[in-house]
């Protein structure tokens, strides 16, 4: 009775689909219930940030789930069908951040003459150093993986020996040499990984531009220093979280794919059938066979971790919005109007 139920759940939510393990990790994350997202207590940007945090994060989760479900359900017929799917979560996260920044730019600026003289700030003025380090390591790993996979790729002759999941033949460099030219495995090359590099470059450009713009947004001459710092720090934190979630999910998908491609084995086995009778066994593995399995497993964990993190960002943004609303309800109106930032 239990096994059919487990199988039914597995059919519905295969482990390769981002949300499956993501939901488990999300549930486990409540071991530490403290909110990771806070919102400015007042000001016009709070509502926009709530939308970005709740709906934007969920959108990235939905995209990650859909593309991973498509990857499970379809055979990679061309050998590079997944080129757009792996970078889709990062692309979605980038769009969410860009759209939120665009919405924030619509908030009216102080009139000329009512702006405070402040020094020109660097892009990272309001971002957390720790988060920036983590956000720096993740894209570095992603870029290194993509560049490595493009570098090891080669073209293959039409009648060459192909192993692993053999797609339709293409003259594009999607193959990696298997055991020093003994054969070819598909799944590498720029057709598979260029979109990831492009999405990564765009995401980095958007991240720098967004933080730089917000750091140097004109200030109202009478705004309080602490409220300005607080709202800009919280904005930078939320943007970093959303992009980091997309980055981790995409890194997971890329590692799942790369690990899966590298695991192909060609074997001639010596299998013992009785005490004195056996058949021969010779195994030939791919160029990075030793790393392929851990990479594949880490990919599962990272993809699910990214989704769990984004789910947590979404829920915690909603919790922060509720907490802000409650604190406003508890504060008398005349006090509320005098406390907090003006913009």
């Amino acid at each position, binding site marked *: 009775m239990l096994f059919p139920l487990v199988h039914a759940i597995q059919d519905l939510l295969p482990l390769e689909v981002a949300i499956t393990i993501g939901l488990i990790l999300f549930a486990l994350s409540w071991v530490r219930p403290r909110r990771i997202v806070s919102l400015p207590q007042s000001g016009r940007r709070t509502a926009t940030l709530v939308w970005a945090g709740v709906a934007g994060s969920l959108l990235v989760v939905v995209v990650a789930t859909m593309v991973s479900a498509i990857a499970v359900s379809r055979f990679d017929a061309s050998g590079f069908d997944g080129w757009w799917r792996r970078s889709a979560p990062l692309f979605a996260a980038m769009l969410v951040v860009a759209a939120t920044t665009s919405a924030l730019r619509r908030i009216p600026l102080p*009139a*000329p*003459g*009512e*702006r*405070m*003289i*402040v*020094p*020109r700030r660097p892009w990272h003025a309001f971002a957390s150093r720790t988060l920036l380090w983590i956000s720096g390591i993740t894209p570095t790993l992603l870029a290194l993986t993509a560049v490595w996979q493009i570098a090891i790729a080669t073209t293959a002759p039409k009648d060459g020996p192909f192993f692993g999941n053999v797609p339709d033949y293409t003259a594009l460099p999607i193959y990696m040499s298997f055991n020093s030219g003994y054969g070819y495995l598909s799944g590498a090359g720029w057709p598979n990984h260029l979109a990831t590099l492009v999405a990564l470059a765009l995401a980095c450009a958007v991240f720098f531009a967004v933080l730089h713009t917000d750091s*140097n947004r*004109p200030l109202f*001459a*009478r705004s*309080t*220093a*602490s*409220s300005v*710092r*607080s709202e800009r720090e919280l904005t930078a934190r939320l943007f970093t979280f959303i992009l980091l979630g997309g980055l981790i999910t995409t890194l997971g998908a890329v590692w799942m794919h790369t690990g899966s491609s590298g695991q192909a084995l060609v074997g001639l086995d010596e299998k013992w059938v009785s005490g004195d009778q056996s058949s021969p066994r010779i195994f030939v593995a791919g160029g990075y066979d030793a790393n392929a399995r851990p990479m594949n497993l880490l990919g599962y964990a990272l993809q699910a971790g990214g989704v769990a993190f984004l789910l947590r960002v979404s829920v915690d943004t909603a919790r922060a919005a509720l907490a802000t609303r409650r604190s406003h309800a508890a504060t008398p109106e005349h006090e509320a109007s005098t406390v907090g930032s003006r913009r």
Partner: protein
Amino acid sequence: MTGTTPSSADEIDALFRGAIRSGQLGDGERLPTVRQSARDVGVAQATAAKAYKTLERDGLIVTRTAAGTRVAPGASRAPQAVIEHARALAEASEGALVSLEDTIAILRAVWRTEATQLPV
């Protein structure tokens, strides 16, 4: 930028001169771009550029191609690091609802304590 809105290069010059002399901008701190300053004040870029040139001629700011326009060393009341710490103190005090008077009093007390400890 409070009070009347500056509209001429001389008025913008006076505004930035005041900000540098008062310590609102510290030595070595980067000024907004000419375009940004023109937008902030609501004047033409040429007017803001003229004000920047006057400030540069008087040795209050220095312009380098890669580093942008910065407050010249010794032009402000204190170096960038001190002004940045002062800003951080102001932000922390405001956040903790400590008044300006109390913050200054604390700073004086801390300063005195540090000063008396130094010779020991």
